Every structure is written in C-alpha cells, then in structure tokens.
C-alpha cells in the first residue's frame, strides 16, 4: 500500500505549503501600500542662506526651523519647536553660524546642520524676543544673545548659553512690540505714543539699564523696523513715517514725515498692509498691494532713493559683491516674475532678472502669486561675477527658489497649515474627474505582476525583481483611480488650509486633484458637509463658512470640481456652528442642517439662533425631529456651563433661545467631551459571561467635564490638587456622576464613545500620565427582559427621556500610561460592530492605536482568570497599559506638529480610514480587528491557482502510480 500513502504525503505537503503562503504575514514590502506620508516645513517667516553649503535655513509660522536643499528643495533637516503654532522669534548669529530661536519659554540655538547646541529655559512659558547684541560692550567673540520676555531681560552667551550678566527686570519692556535697533531695545504698545528706549550695552556690561521714554508725535502702528539707521514705525493711521534717531550725539528724537510728501506715488493704504524692512542705510517701505520705496536716513531725515511701483515683495539686505542690496520681486500677476536688486546706499539697480511664472502658477492651482517673504542671497558664478538667488515664499504657501533665470524648484507648503478636513465620495465610474486619467495596464503586465508576486513569496526572486514588483504594484493598484470603489476605500479628502485655500486630495497617494484659493479678506474658516446624493450623477456639495463679520458668508462648493455653486452673505456674525445630527432627506439628496449661533459674550445675553438652510422644509424638519431641542456650551465666565432650550417659532420667525440651566463648576474646566451623535451603535446591551444582561447607558445628551487646577497655574506647596470628572446631562444640567482624583492635574484629554469615557490626566507625585476609563450602565432596578415581548411586540423598546432620568452605574478603572497623550480619537466603522481602537495622539507627534479591551474597567485583579472571564475576552489587570511599538497607527513616521486625526468609515465593516495632519500629513487604512471580511488587496491569485492545479495534477499522477504499484504487486 505504498502508492496511496505516498499520494497523501504529497497532498499534505502541498496543503501545508499553501497554508504557509496564505498565513505568512508580510510587513516590510507592504509599507506604502495603504499609507502615504508627506513632509512639510511650513510657511517660512524668516530665511537665511547657509554660508558654505547649498542650503537655505528657514523658521516657519508652524514653529519649525530647518534647512532646505538649494538644488531640489528637499528638507535637509528640520526641528519642531513644539509650541502652540506661533512663529518663533529667530536671530541668526553670524559669528557662530547658528540659529537662535525663542518660543514656548525656551531659548534654543541650532547649528546649521540641525544639531541643538544649547537650550535654556525662560522663567515664563510664553513667547519671547531674541536678538543678537552687536554693541561695543560685547568683548565676547561668539556674540551675546538678548532674550526679552515679559519685561525680564537675560543676556546669554551665544556659544554656550551661559548668563553673561544677571537677569534684569524692566517692567516697562512688557509691551506689544519690541524692536532691536542700533544698540537699543525699543518697546511700545500698538496705537500709543510712549516709546521706551533701553541701551543694550548696559545689559551686557551688567549695569543697571537706563530706561528712557520718548514721546512720538503720532500714535504708532505695529509696522516698525529697527536697524543701524535707527528705528522707524508707521503711524497708526498709516499716513506718516516716524523715524527715531538713535545714538550719535544729542538726545533721541522722533521726526515724522507724511508719506505722500516722501513718496508721492504711493497710494493711501492702511498701515496694516504696509511693512518696514531695515537696511544698513535706511529702510525699505513695502506696500502689499504694490510699490516698494527704498529710503535712506541721514541724520534722522528719511530720503527716497528709489520707488518701484510694481514691486510686490522685498527682501532684507544682503551683501552682493562690494555693495549691500535688497531684492524686490515684481509682477507676480503676469506670466513673468522679475527680481530687481537695488543697492541700499545709492538706490541704483544692480541686477535685473526675469523668471517664467507658468510653472509656479500651475503649482499654485491658480492662486494669486503674492510674495510674503523674500530672502536674497549672493553667489559667485563660474565667470567670477556675482549672481543672486532669491527664496520667495508666496502667501498661498508656495515656496520657490529663483536663480539664474529659472525657477529651480517650488514646494507647496499650504498643506502644512490644514485646519479642517472632510472625506467625501469620489465620482462614480464613467464620470471621472477631468485631466486625471489613470494609466491602464495591459494583460501581460498583470500576468507579469502575478508571476513576480509568486516568485517573491517563494523567495526565488532577485532584488531587481522585487523592485519591479513594487513598481508594478503601484502601477496596477487601483487605489489611485479617481473614481469610487465598491468597498469605499477611495475617497476625496477635502482640506481647508490656513492660507485660505480649499484643496481636494486623493486619499490613494495624497495628490491634489483640485484647489481653490480665496482672497485674504474672504478666507473661509469652516468646512462643513452640505449635501450628498444617493444617485451617482450628482456630485456631493460642501459648505464653506466665514464666521467673522465683516465679510461673513456661506458658500456651497461642488466637491468634485471645486466650482462655487452659490454664495450668500450673512447679515450677522457667527460665533458657533452647531450641526443638527439628523439630516434632512429631500428625494435622493441628504441635506445637512446647521444652527448658526450669534452670541455676544455679555452676561445675560440671549443667543440669536438661525437655521441653515433657512427654508420651510428645514424649519419643519427641525421642529419635527426632536421633541425639545437644547443647546449648551461653556459660558463666558470660566467654569460655567450653560444650556438653552430652543423653540422654533412660526414660519420665518426664527428660533428663540431661553436659558434653561446653568452649572457653575468650582475649578477651571480642563476638558470637555461629548459623544458624536452620529456614531453607529450596534447593540445597546452588554451580555456578561454568566449570561446576565447589562444595559449600556447610551444617552447622547451626555457631557464629560474634567475640572481642576488650571493648566500652567502654580501649585502651592500645601495645596492639594485634584482632577474631578463630571458627567452632566445636557438637557437638564443635572450632574449624573462625579469622581475625583486627588494628587492629579491637567492637561486632560478626553473622548466619549458609546458608553465609554476615557480621559488622561497627570499624576503629580509619580509624574506619570494616568488613563482612566469609565463605562456607564443603566442601573434601573428590576429591569426585566422578555424574549417574547422583544420578538413579537414592535413597541418593546421604549424611548428614553432626560426628564425622567434613569439611575446610572459607573464602572471605573485607572491605569498608568507610558505614552504622554495630547489628544484622543476613536476609530469608527460602518456598523459599529468591529471592536474599537482608541487613537492616542502622543507628544512625540505619533498616533498610538490602543485596543479598547486594555482600558476595560472590568479587567479582573488576579493573574489566573476563570473560563468565563477568558471567554469574555478580559485580560488580567495591570497597573500600566501595555505598550507595543507595533501598535503605532502612524507606523515609524512622525507627523510633525500633529494637530488632529480624522477617521472615516468605509463600506467594509472591518476597515476605516485615518488621516492625521499637522505640519506633515499621514494617511493610512486601519483595521482595528484585522481584515476579517476581505482578502488582502495584493492577494496572489496566480499562486492559489497554480497550487490548485499542482494539487490536482499530483492527485492524478498519484492515482496512476498507485494502480501501477498494485498491478506490479499482484503479479508478484
């Protein structure tokens, strides 16, 4: 009986091979299959060319410092200063070629290779001003740094941050504007006349600084500059230039000159649209609409050297050959950009160069090219003459390098400023977006791909074939097709940026399909869902809203083309936009409804509420959808929550609001969280392993409030601090439950999902972060469940009301967390069946996916679990949450300056899409309970078919061989 047994062996072997192939987890070559990552640096506010390397070093509005490669614009290095996204104050110290930055209470010095040279903490955690001191008093060769913060001045050695003298307290320096000018610090408040002057050399010498107050003839605006030529500021009305003469003999004195007398061609414009740039001989006055005047100051009197009416941007001065010059950028509206280099001492034009702007216009997606920052650098050409290059940062976020008549490179940095995002459906097949046809692959390529895939899986490949496989995967993958797919994986990601543009990104690779830029005075502040359709012929519509008056408006945008469908000005400002969870169904359209709230912060003021869209259908929908709608928010006084009952009046009368309740909390509010009312919930009960039923407390009108000592407030030695968590019913204002954590303080991050509240706080004694989870259950006594009633009585589920409250049972448990959270989100799937993961935004700008079962408050406090507990999926309690490096949803990437995480369900229950944005962008596909309902996208069908064919051929051959063997044996 050798034959059949042999056949069986082969079959088992083949089956094992197939099994091994199917279950083998492959991670490394899947990188980039479902995710993409884009690095940005932000909108540069200051730039400095590297003295020796082909690099330009910038500091950005997003509080990032870094250097870009001049050849291709790639990021050579970058460092986040980790502050609340304010542009840092930067000083470039030439002698030690380092960048000194001040932000968030820290002064840091970076060398131009990205190394942190030193860091020094300032007494207060707020913005500070740094400046290099070049006075005669500084005998130190490495230079001295002045750090001014809230009236305190520190003098630091630029080489090692040692204090050169003890800190000076000058209360008078705590002003809006501080400018360093020619050995003095000039401080003044915007719109005032009093200007304080302090000599910096006295700081360095360690003397008591003499404060001199000079009265300006006119109120001064924030547009000011200081340099070797003194201090200059525009008057608050914008019509005069006031110049303060410093140093020299005699007292400091202001002289104001009317601008129309100084520069007759300059049109009248408010001071906010003008900028002053200091040069060694005087100033450059730049008007943002057009026109730059190069002025020289002789004995405190400004004199016009050259006026360029077409200039839109001007740089700081740079040494070009034997002269110092500024670069003016002209004519950004046409198809050409012109760089004019003007000598600051004589006003002569040293060089003029034209650059084609077509590529830039394309990269800007039609936005106006208005230069925001220009940096000029000089270099020696091959023929030993001097050439200039300019880094131009346009207001739309485009950053470009101009050199020798060409735009060397450009980067679109507007996506580093994303404020809000929204996932919408792509067009259906056949109605693909114009100009974005994906390449179609032929059959041969597909077969080649499958063969290569089989080879790689069986490890028979060469490295070249592995590379070819990856390339073909990108080519053949349909993830970049600009149409929607059956599983809902392909979506359009709309992003509203801080630079005032709305961009549509394809979620397959993050490319921009369309972009629309708005004028600075019409920048929308909110991106909202508006109208979606069940039929595939209509494109979904999104709503853009500008909240601030004047210029408040709403406009609807076609999400597939970016075309504006209508625009409607708002007669009132909008302080809050409240989505009504139940959408209005109009035929095949699903119309979102919003409440626009206009509320003055005065006490006792009643909010004015209007409906959007304000149509009869929407009013009827709003009136009928809920018995009694309420509205609540954190009141104008700290620690006060207010609830208003809303009443839809007669048609056209609008909605009236009345104060219904008010809760005053004893401490300051550290965190607020509510459940997303549209979150899908599969089951309203939890069945324990002993078959008992627990009813989840799923009241959507639940607010989680954490109170405690305000963040950043000083902790008194004898005072105990505590974080208190409250659950508030937002219809009645009743506090349903509270629990307190002594010895804890903020910052608190919280999320509410289903019947779970998870919040993090900091334990003062251990210095660690604590995650506390609460699960709420309905504790109505004697609640019975009848199967017959449930099966046959359609009215068996009774509606619940906050006015007849049910008792609540809260199970709570705390864990130490190894990661430091700065934000929390939760995954969301189509039906809500899949186990949830909590997405913890960490202080290292990553996203950690934490399974909900780890924060289950019912985790038993014993090592040996019973059969029942194991069956329920409980794990033994440990005081610290598990930390697995493989659980980072952002993989090995760091999403610099991570601000928010957006989660979107797909049509497959197992999978959801996650987009994390900050300065960087990161997108991935998440499967919280693994992909239980689908094969992988790159499942190798060829290998499966080959294995099946091999199996059947093997079986046939073995059958034949068995017969032969039997015959031979019988003839024996």
């Amino acid at each position, binding site marked *: 009986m050798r034959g059949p047994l042999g056949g069986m062996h082969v079959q088992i072997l083949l089956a094992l091979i197939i099994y091994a192939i199917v279950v083998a987890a492959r991670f490394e070559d899947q990188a980039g299959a479902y995710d993409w990552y884009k690095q940005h640096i932000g909108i540069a506010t200051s730039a400095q060319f590297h003295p020796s390397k082909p690099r330009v070093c910038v500091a950005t509005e997003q509080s990032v410092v870094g250097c870009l490669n001049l050849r291709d614009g790639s990021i050579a290095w970058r460092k986040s200063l980790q502050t609340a996204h304010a542009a840092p104050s930067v000083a470039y110290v030439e002698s030690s070629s380092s960048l000194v930055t001040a932000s968030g209470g820290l002064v840091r010095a970076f060398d131009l290779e990205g190394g942190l040279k030193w860091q020094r903490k300032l007494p207060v955690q707020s913005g500070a001003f740094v400046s290099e001191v070049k006075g005669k008093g500084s005998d130190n060769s490495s230079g001295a740094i002045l750090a001014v913060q809230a009236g305190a001045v520190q003098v630091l050695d630029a080489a090692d941050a040692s204090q050169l003298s003890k800190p000076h307290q000058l209360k008078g320096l705590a002003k809006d504007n501080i400018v360093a000018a020619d050995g003095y610090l000039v401080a003044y408040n915007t719109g005032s006349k009093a200007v304080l002057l302090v000599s910096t050399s006295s700081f360095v010498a360690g003397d008591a600084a003499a404060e001199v107050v000079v009265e300006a003839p006119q109120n001064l605006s924030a547009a000011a500059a200081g340099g070797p030529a003194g201090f200059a500021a525009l008057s608050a009305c914008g019509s005069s230039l006031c110049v303060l003469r410093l140093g020299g003999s005699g007292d400091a004195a202001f002289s104001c000159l009317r601008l129309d007398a100084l520069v007759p061609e300059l049109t009248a414009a408010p001071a906010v649209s003008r900028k002053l740039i200091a040069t060694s001989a005087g100033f450059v006055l730049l008007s943002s609409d057009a026109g730059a005047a190069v002025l020289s100051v002789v004995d405190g009197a400004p004199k016009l050297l050259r006026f360029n009416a077409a200039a839109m941007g001007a740089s700081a001065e740079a040494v070009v050959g034997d002269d110092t010059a500024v670069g003016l950028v002209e004519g950004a509206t046409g198809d050409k950009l012109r760089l004019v280099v003007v000598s600051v001492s004589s006003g002569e034009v040293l060089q003029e160069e034209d650059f084609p702007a077509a590529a830039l216009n394309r990269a800007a997606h039609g936005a106006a090219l208005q230069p925001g920052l220009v940096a000029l650098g000089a270099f020696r050409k091959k023929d030993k003459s001097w050439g200039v290059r300019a880094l131009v940062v346009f207001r739309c976020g485009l950053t470009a390098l101009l050199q020798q008549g060409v735009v060397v490179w450009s980067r679109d940095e507007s996506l580093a400023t994303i404020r809000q995002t929204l996932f919408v459906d792509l067009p259906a097949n056949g109605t693909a977006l114009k100009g974005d046809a994906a390449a179609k692959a032929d059959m041969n390529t597909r077969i080649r791909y499958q063969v290569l895939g089989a080879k790689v899986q069986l490890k028979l490949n060469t490295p070249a074939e592995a590379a070819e496989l990856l390339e073909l995967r990108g080519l053949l993958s349909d993830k970049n097709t600009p149409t929607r797919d059956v599983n809902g994986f392909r979506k359009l990601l709309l992003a509203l940026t801080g630079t005032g543009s709305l961009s549509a990104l394809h979620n397959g690779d993050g490319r921009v399909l369309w972009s629309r830029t708005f004028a600075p005075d019409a920048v929308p502040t909110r991106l909202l869902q508006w109208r979606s359709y069940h039929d595939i012929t209509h494109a979904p519509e999104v709503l853009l809203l500008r909240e601030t008056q004047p210029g408040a408006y709403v406009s609807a945008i076609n999400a597939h083309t970016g075309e504006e469908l209508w625009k409607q000005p708002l007669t009132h400002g909008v302080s809050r936009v409240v989505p009504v969870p139940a959408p209005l169904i109009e035929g095949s359209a699903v119309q979102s409804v919003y409440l626009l709230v206009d509320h003055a912060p005065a006490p006792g003021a009643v909010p004015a509420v209007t409906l959007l869209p304000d149509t009869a259908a929407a009013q009827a929908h709003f009136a009928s959808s809920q018995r009694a709608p309420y509205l609540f928010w954190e009141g104008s006084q700290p620690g006060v929550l207010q609830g208003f009952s809303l009443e839809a009046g007669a048609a056209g009368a609008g909605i009236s609001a009345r104060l219904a309740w008010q809760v005053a909390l004893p401490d300051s509010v550290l965190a607020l969280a509510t459940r997303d009312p549209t979150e899908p919930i599969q089951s309203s009960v939890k069945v324990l392993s002993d078959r008992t039923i627990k009813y989840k407390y799923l009241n959507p009108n639940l607010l989680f409030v954490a109170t405690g000592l305000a963040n950043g407030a000083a902790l008194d030695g004898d005072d105990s601090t505590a974080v208190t968590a409250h659950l508030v019913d937002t219809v009645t204002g009743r506090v349903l439950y509270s629990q307190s954590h002594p010895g804890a303080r903020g910052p608190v991050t919280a999320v509410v999902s289903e019947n779970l509240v998870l919040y993090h706080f900091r334990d003062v004694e251990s210095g660690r972060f604590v995650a506390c989870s609460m699960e709420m259950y309905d504790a109505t006594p004697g609640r019975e469940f009848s199967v017959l009633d449930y099966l046959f009585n359609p009215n068996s589920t009774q509606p619940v009301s*906050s006015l007849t409250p049910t008792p609540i049972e809260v199970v709570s448990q705390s864990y130490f967390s190894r990661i430091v959270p700065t934000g929390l989100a939760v995954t969301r799937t189509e039906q809500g069946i899949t186990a949830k993961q909590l997405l913890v935004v960490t202080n290292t700008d990553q996203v950690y996916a934490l399974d909900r079962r780890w924060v289950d408050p019912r985790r038993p406090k014993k090592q040996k679990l019973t059969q029942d507990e194991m069956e329920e999926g409980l794990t033994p309690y440990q005081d610290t949450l598990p930390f697995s490096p493989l659980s980072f949803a952002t993989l090995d990437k760091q999403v610099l300056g991570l601000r928010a995480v957006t989660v979107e369900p797909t049509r497959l229950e197992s999978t959801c899409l996650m987009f994390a944005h900050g300065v960087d962008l990161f997108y991935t596909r998440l499967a919280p309970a693994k992909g239980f309902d689908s094969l992988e996208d790159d499942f190798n069908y060829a290998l499966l078919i080959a294995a099946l064919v091999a199996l059947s051929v093997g079986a046939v051959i073995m059958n034949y061989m068995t017969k032969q063997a039997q015959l031979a044996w019988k003839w024996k």
Partner: protein
Amino acid sequence: MADLKSWKMDFESLIPDRKSQTDPPGYDASIAKDPIGMLSSSKAKDKNALARRQQALYAKATAPIKQVGMMCFMAWMFGNSIQIFSIFMTFNLISAPVSAIMSSGEVFPRDEEWKQLDTLTPRALYCLVNLGQLIFGLYKLSAMRLLPSSPSDFISTMPVPPVLEHAYPAL
C-alpha cells in the same frame, strides 16, 4: 447452467492467502451440514425459534448502548472548548442518533413469515437508547454555549432606544 456461471475463476480468486471457496455445481452446503433438518417437521421447533428471534431483536435494540456510552465518554473527555475536534464530535453526537432513529424501520423490518414477532418494543428501545445520545449531544451543545437558551441570546440586536430630547453641543 446457472450454477455453472458462478463456477469460474478470475484473478481475484488467485490471491494466495484467500482459500478457494468455489464449490462444485449442484453442491448445497446446508444440506451437507444438516441432512435431518430437511426431513423433520418445522412445527415442533417453531416456539423455540420465535423466542430466539425475539431475543435477537432485543439484543439488536440494546446493542448501541455500549457505543453511546463510549461516544458520551469521549465527548466528555473533549471538554467544552470550541475547536475543530469537539465540533466534529458534537455534530456526530447529534447527527448519528437522529439518523439512527430515522432509519430504525429498516433495522427492525416486519417479517412477513413471523407475523407474531414483536418488532415495535425493540424498535422503541433502540430509539430510546439513541435518544439518550441525542440528549447528551444537546447538553453538550448547551455546555459549549451554542444553544440559544437564555434571554441574553436574543437581546444582542436590540436597537438603541430613541431619545426624546436632544441637546446640541456648541463647544
């Protein structure tokens, strides 16, 4: 000639360790063993034969007891965990008695020659024994938590109760 047809040889009969059982044509083994039985009257033996047949039927009916006991013991040994073998076992535990009860008519056929033979009681006994296995199988299923026997098995799809009031957060 019909007898001659079975008097043949083929390769199967040439297997060395099998004894050749081909009898010559016209040879009847039963007559050769008991030549008197053919001649004596069957009436005298009838009563004895009926009792023996009845006994045989009862023996047939109680035969599965051993097997059922064995199956139950094995099922108990497998435990209540849900895995491929215990699922097979439990499936077998339930399907075998059901099919045995369904086909009990064929196990205990009505004999036209012996009309007074009681086939019903042994058949009922047979069914009872198999029913025992079925009950054990169901118990096993319940122990494995696969029987919807408590209210909580019906409740998991209970919808979320609607809420009468709604407060909109404007945070």
